[in-house]
Structures are given as C-alpha cells and as structure tokens.
C-alpha cells in the first residue's frame, strides 16, 4: 500500500530542519517499493503561531514563562498540514508536536542524517512490519 513520508530539509539532501523551522515539507511517496518526491508542501504560517511569545496566547498551555509554549495550539496547524503522511522526519521535533502526531498515529523520527539514508531505513522497517516479518538484521548489515 502506498504511503507518504514528510521530511524537513532545506537542501533536499540532508534532514537538517527542526519541525518548527520547516516552511516547505518534502513529501515522498512510497509505492510498490518505489520512492519518489511527489510534492513540496508549503506550511501555512498561522496567526497564533506568529503571535507566539506574547503573554496569554493560545489555550491550555503553560503561559508561565514569557517565551514559553502555549499548548498544542502552536503546532496543530503544522501537524494537520501533513496529517496524510505515515511519518515525519526532522532534525528535532518538540514535545507538543510529538504528542499531536502520536494522537494521529503518525511516527516521528527526529534524526540528523541524509535523506537517502533515512528513507532507506524507514522503508526497510515499514516493509518488514507490513509483511509481518522479523526486523532482525545481521550485525554486519546494520
């Protein structure tokens, strides 16, 4: 079955952006073992996101420190924009975003490596678990 992977990268080679820094996600589609870059998806800067840092913004978050997070509302829009993907790969993904992805059963991989390497490992993993096969690898291959 086809699925999509969202990657945060500024140069198309390395996974080098934090989740919050991404303005355009690279969306890869994997189908029948083939991988292709199917779109670059722009992320809408949200109003409350721009406002973030102002005291009292957002709801349900900890407004205690001035620059602090204001709960899940900060990230909801971003998370929603790639809600059709099976996983997201960024250099760092904050706690609030991780929780929101978890809610949608989207896996989060916060790693720093080449896109190629990340795709290879993730696709291997999904292939095995989708086929109900062991992910056991010999040490030399790892």
């Amino acid at each position, binding site marked *: 079955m086809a699925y999509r992977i969202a990657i945060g990268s500024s140069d198309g080679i390395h996974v080098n952006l934090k989740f919050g820094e991404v303005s355009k996600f690279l969306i890869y589609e994997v189908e029948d073992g083939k991988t292709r870059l199917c779109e670059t998806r722009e992320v809408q800067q949200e109003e409350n996101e721009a406002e973030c840092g102002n005291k009292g913004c957002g709801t349900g978050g900890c407004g205690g420190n001035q620059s602090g997070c204001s709960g899940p509302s900060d990230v909801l829009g971003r998370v929603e924009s790639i809600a059709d993907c099976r996983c997201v790969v960024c250099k760092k993904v904050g706690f609030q975003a991780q929780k929101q992805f978890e809610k949608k059963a989207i*896996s*989060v*991989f*916060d*790693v720093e*490596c080449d896109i190629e390497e*990340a795709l290879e*490992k*993730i696709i*291997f*993993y999904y292939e095995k678990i989708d086929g109900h096969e*062991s*992910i*056991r*690898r*010999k*040490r030399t*291959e*790892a």
Partner: protein
Amino acid sequence: MAKLLDKQRYKCALGAMQTVQAIHRALPILHSGPGCAQKLSDTIGSSGYFSPNIFPCTSINEKDVVFGGVKKLNSTIENALKVVDADLYVVLTGCIPEIVGDDSGEVVSRFEDADKPVIYAPTAGFKGNNYKGHEQVVDAIIEQYLKKSDKKQKGLVNIWADVPYQDLFWLGNIRELEKLVEELGLIPNTIFGFNRGIDNINKIPQAEFNLLVSPWVGLGNMKKMEKKLGIPYLHYKTLPIGATETSKFLRAVGKFANVPEGKVEAVIKEHEDYYYYLIERYADLFLENRVINKQFTVVADAQYTLGITKFLVNDLGLIPAKQFVVDDTPKNYRDEIKEEFKQLNYGIEAEVSFETDGYKIHEEIKNHDYHGYPLVLGGYYEKEVTENQKGNFLNISWPVQDKVVLDDFYVGYTGGIRLIEDIYTIAVQRFN
C-alpha cells in the same frame, strides 16, 4: 503453532538486573524499552540506593528500532558514570536492541578507560530466562573484568548459589553457607548481599577453589573460571537442607579442601547433637501429623525441588508424590538431576517432571491420590489448587505473595529447622 505457557515461574533474561542489584553498589544500565525494569522488578525487597525505578535506561522507541540505538546507549552510559555513584556498571541489553542489531559490546568497549569498570551482558529475552541471564552477568564479570592471579590466598573459597531475588531466601542462604564453610576453617568469599561488592569480586581470582551449590545454575560460570582463572571447582548439586544433607555437604567440602577428617566430624557432631535434640522433642508432633500429610509434592526450581525432596524424605520420613522442576532446566542437565532424585534414604525414589506449564502441573496434583491431604510446597500459584484438595500449602518459590522474607533461610542445619517450623505451623493451624 504458538504455544501458550500457563503460569510460568521465571522472567526473561533481562531479569538478571536483579543479580546485578544484589551486588552491593553495582548498577545495571539497561539498553531496553521503557517499562522493562518496572515489569521485571519484584514488589518487595528491591527498593534502596539503587532500585529498578532509577536504573539508567535508554528507553528506546520506534526511532531507535529504525535508526539504531547505539548513540543513546553511549550517552546513557556516559551520563550514568557522571551522575550515579556506583562501583561497577553492568550494561544489560533487552530484546529490541539485539533484534535490530545494535553492537552494544562495541559501545561498552569505548568505556574501557573510564574510572569505574563498565561491563556488558547480552540478556535479550529470547535467549533464555533469568536463570540464564544470571549466568550471563557472572560470565561478563569473569570475561571482561577478572584477571588471573598468581597469588592465592590459603583457604579462600568462592561460594556460588542460586539466583538472587528469584530465590526468596537467597540472602539468608548464602550467609548460612558462608557460616558453615567458615566453621571448617576455610575463608568464604561471596559477591552478593550486604557488604559484599567490588572488593569481593576482586578477591575471586585468589581463591583456592569455587564451591557451587546448585543443581545446574552457574555450572557454566565455574567451567569458565577454571579455564580462564585456573580455579578448580566443587559442584555440589543438592541444596543442603537439614542434618542428613548438610553433614554430607560438609564432608564433601572438607574432603575437597583437605580439611582434617577429625575437624569436619567435630563440626558435624556439634550441629547434629543440637538438631536431633530439637527433632526428638517434637517427634510426637511429627508422628501425629504424618497421618495428615502422607505424601508431598514440591513445585519449584531445581535447587528447592531437589533440596526439599531430600530433606522431607531423609529427615522427616515423608513419602514423595511426583515432584516438579519448573525452571526450564536445560536438557543436558536433566538426566543427572533426575538421578539425584533416586538417591534417597530407605531405597525410596522420587518421580520428577521437568514441566513449565502450570496448568499441567495442577492437573497432575488434582488427579494424584495422595492417600489423604496433600502437602504442597511451591509458588503462590499452587495455593488455590492445594486448598481445593484440602491440603497444606507452603509458599517457598517464586512467585511469592503470602510471605515476607528478609533474611530467613532454609539452608543448613538451622535452615532445616526453619523449614520444619514453617511446615508444621501450617499443619497445626488446621486444628486451631
């Protein structure tokens, strides 16, 4: 088809974290998923300076399955060394990192030059149970930490017994074994329990011999030490409980260590005199109660099933029904252990079954004719089935739910008396 195991009596190999915990000031570092330590810890007797709730753990997740968890392991060891003050750090790996192929041994080898020793034991659950895990930890100490010593201390003997925490009486038992060996004029050395730790580990290579008191657990370790450290070993299969076995045990150790026979016999006589003084005074109680419990069954790991069977037959004159060994004893040891069940006094032989499935054991207990009320010594799982048979039940092996043991023991002359007290306390409660 997948088999269902009902009421298993052991944990996965990562349960060896309890073996590490039993070494004073030794700290397990877990390379495993979050929650492993929580599930493997026992609810009593494992709090303290290092407890399962604070064991450093890599808490690996999906990301580490896909991308490998070695980075996290490296930083976890690095930080454990910084923030937790211990004498020995033992990295234990769970199933996940071994399945995905993390080279934990390589990561640990980066800490060779650390101020404190860091060693590594592969304890993935699919490799075996916590009896195996226990052996892996001792193996790791031998292979990665100990060095051969040219200097030998005269009379020094390392004592090894069964698995800490898995054995309810581990602490009391090993202290009592020390005491008995000491009475023969030898110097005991053990690594588990209060005030035993890295200094005792350091003394291991200087010992004249290793004494293993267990039907099979640890035999591999003894062979390894013989080969690497040049320490011969005495394998004493039966956990000595009560006078008959303890006297045999002392004679065997005395002979192996060249202790003069006169000295051994003097020690034995002193103990036996007191032991039989007690037995004699309560003989009326035992005789009356034989009417109640004609036959008994033990459901425990190899050491207790064998030790208690010998004790109840040889010292108390009870008749064995079928006995069950539930620790998944490796097949190559089974025949030898079976033979031991035939070496009972009065030409009595006990039938023994190596069975891990609680359902099957309970069916056999239900269907056996005990010629009266059965006496069952086992894990908490056997309580209900024994009560349904109107029998007497004593919880002596894992899992333990209705008993608190701090440092009580069943080993030796005194241990035999303790076991008699426990059994007959339950027997007399029936009438009162």
